[in-house]
């Protein structure tokens, strides 16, 4: 199947699956601290897929842009995770 050999198509399927998974976590499993942490991680995974497969950031002229995206994702995890951990009394 040609459709499944194309990484852009596979990325789209992965993104839709992860979005549905995040929805299921909120609706069926947990919307609390651990659910929120899982959703943050799933979201940054989606950001990574979009930036690497759709945006082709690694082909940008300056390698700094690819690094910027990784740093941006890292900061989202640190900021979101930090705030939620703080309120949970873990920090």
């Amino acid at each position, binding site marked *: 199947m040609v459709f499944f050999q194309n990484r852009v198509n596979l990325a789209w399927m992965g993104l*839709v699956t992860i979005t549905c998974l995040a929805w299921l976590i*909120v609706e069926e499993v947990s*919307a609390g601290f651990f659910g929120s942490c899982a*959703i943050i991680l799933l979201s940054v995974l989606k950001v990574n897929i979009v930036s690497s497969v759709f*945006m082709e950031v690694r082909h940008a002229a300056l390698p700094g*842009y690819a690094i910027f995206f990784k740093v941006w994702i890292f900061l989202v995890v640190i900021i*979101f995770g930090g705030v939620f951990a703080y309120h949970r009394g873990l920090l």
Partner: protein
Amino acid sequence: MVKYRKSAVITEHLSEEAANSGVWIFVTIDMIIFLLLFVVFLTERSNDIPLFISSQLHLNVTIGFINTIILITSSWLVASSIQSFRKNVPHNGIRSLNLALFLGFLFLLFKLYEYTEKINSGASIIGNYFYLLYFTLTFLHMLHVIGGIVGLFIVRGNLIRSFDRKALQSIEVVGIYWHMVDLLWIILFPLLYLLR
């Protein structure tokens, strides 16, 4: 009858011109601004968690979820469209681009429906920081979506008139912007609708 020139250079990935394009600087600045807005949201949330959670429960998660799928799919269609142009199959590229544009409009329709629903239910930005930030963030993002639709529409026109290397570069550049719009929504959706 549209006639395509078979002059486009077949490339595997981003053209040199798109790779050097100033759109990367724009995307970088925009993503920093949105990251700061996320910090503002989380800071304000920390000051009044009960208000933020109770207001958040009134949001229509189903519409947020549908809009996420819509933007992801639209982004995929733009990426597929670029692939088709690179392979010199412009008819497929235009078809994917048309569908991506349709989904962009659909996102706006759902967003406007959601705004109407919220305003009719008495949600006000006065005295409620959650709604103030919700409307600010989503409205800013919606302006980006409108900008992306305009960009895609212009590029579509250029591609129909003449499919050449320059037109291919222009869809690559607008595509980078459109993917950023998708990427920002990927964080906005959980931030506003899901995180408890």
